[in-house]
């Protein structure tokens, strides 16, 4: 039962990701991306990490994907229609992706991954909101705060770059 669910969810994830790559219309690509995010949230639920799953949906599908759609809607319609799916350097990231896939396939072959474990929750203690909070704010407080500052710097940098005419 868990195995079947796992394969359905991974098919949704991978299929959504392929849809992003292969669809010609950028809006449809964004929709496929949300589909893929749903698959990832499903994988988190299968690991009993409901908090992560919900954050995946709220932050990525609910906020970031809406931002992407909004940016595309603000752009000129003809610019969007003239966009190409691949530019002249598309083979470099394709090579990296292929290398990663080969690496994972090699590992799966070397360690003889048992496919009968598919979908079983092999995480040590599951996870919940309280534990995530304790780990973040007790053990990793400094890295967490540094991350926040880095994000703030990126935010201010974006504002400065786009608002050149402010004296």
């Amino acid at each position, binding site marked *: 039962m868990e195995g079947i669910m796992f394969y359905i969810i991974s098919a949704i994830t991978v299929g959504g990701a392929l849809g992003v790559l292969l669809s010609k219309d950028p809006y449809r690509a964004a929709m496929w991306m949300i589909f893929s995010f749903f698959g990832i949230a499903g994988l988190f639920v299968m690991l009993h990490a*409901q908090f992560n799953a919900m954050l995946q949906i709220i932050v990525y599908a609910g906020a970031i994907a809406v931002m992407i*759609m*909004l940016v595309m*809607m603000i752009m000129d319609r003809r610019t969007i229609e003239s966009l190409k799916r691949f530019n002249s350097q598309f083979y470099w990231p394709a090579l990296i992706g292929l290398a990663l896939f080969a690496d994972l396939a090699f590992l799966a072959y070397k360690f003889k991954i048992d496919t009968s474990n598919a979908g079983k929750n092999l995480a040590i203690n599951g996870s919940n909101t309280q534990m995530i909070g304790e780990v973040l704010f007790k053990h990793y407080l400094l890295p967490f705060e540094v991350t926040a500052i880095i994000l703030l710097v990126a935010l201010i940098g974006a504002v400065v770059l786009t608002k050149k005419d402010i004296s």
Partner: protein
Amino acid sequence: MEVLIAIIKLIIVVTVLSVYVMYATWYERKVIGHMQQRIGPKRVGWHGLLQPIADTIKSFWKEDVIPDRADKPLFWLAPALAATFPFAAAIAIPFAPPLHLANGKVFYFSVFHSKVDILYILGMMGLASFGVLIAGIASGGSKYAFTGSQREAAQIVSYEAILALALLNPILMAHSLSLEKIVEAQRHLWFVFYQPFAFVAFVIAMIAATARVPFDLPEAEPELVAGHMTEFSGLKMGLFFFGQYVMIFVVSALASIVFLGGWTGPVLPGVVWYWIKILAFIFMYTWFWGTFPRYRYDQLMDIAWKALLPLMVLNILWTGFALAVGLPVL
């Protein structure tokens, strides 16, 4: 067995909410009518009670017009998503207080129950905007639809943040994301008395998140015909209304659970209190509709980012500080 119970619950919830949506339109027309010294629907049935059924049958037989330049699959997907996600949010809303059975188990009056209910409802509410977004894109370059969904996207992103920040204060005080725990934490005093600012911010943000007057910019009739719904007809347009009214129910229930103590209250039984609070919020929506003029678009954004966001951040800082050092929160 559990799956069977869940399916039965799901069917009941969808049926009840569909009937609710039909009669919510009747109720709104009636209340708005009396506010404007009119009578409202009166001809079909006793006091117009059969009017919603007549409207539903009419919308089934309307001609389904699809524009030539429309993106056909997305044009079908948009109304479906607009109705699906609000229902998905509604299945986590309890319809009555949980029942403690004799054999030690607890029977929940919501289809889906988890430890992260609030996050689930927020997530589904965020996704509900995609129906409107796709409606604008799929309409084949119709300017009204496009502008309407553009506004919806910006509005949802802004007010979803306010909604989450306003909910954070009660969550901090209850130490939980589950709706039952939050209600339990308000046994003695409702959170609205501890967190009046968060409550006001939540009410403003929930009206904006459902895109109702005075924040109904995505479908502002005088400027945009019908906004994102301009190109849709018949049942497709009906599905957008379905989504909106179910969403109003969801945020009303959320507000009454998180700020007004859900099913806690003196004298009357819990379930009665709970529904009085929800219906009061639904009346408030109609009341605002009859009272306020529409805000301008830049005013809408100013309210979110320049007034409510700093206020909520300060509120969270104060709540966290007061809880940490043991001061009374207010």
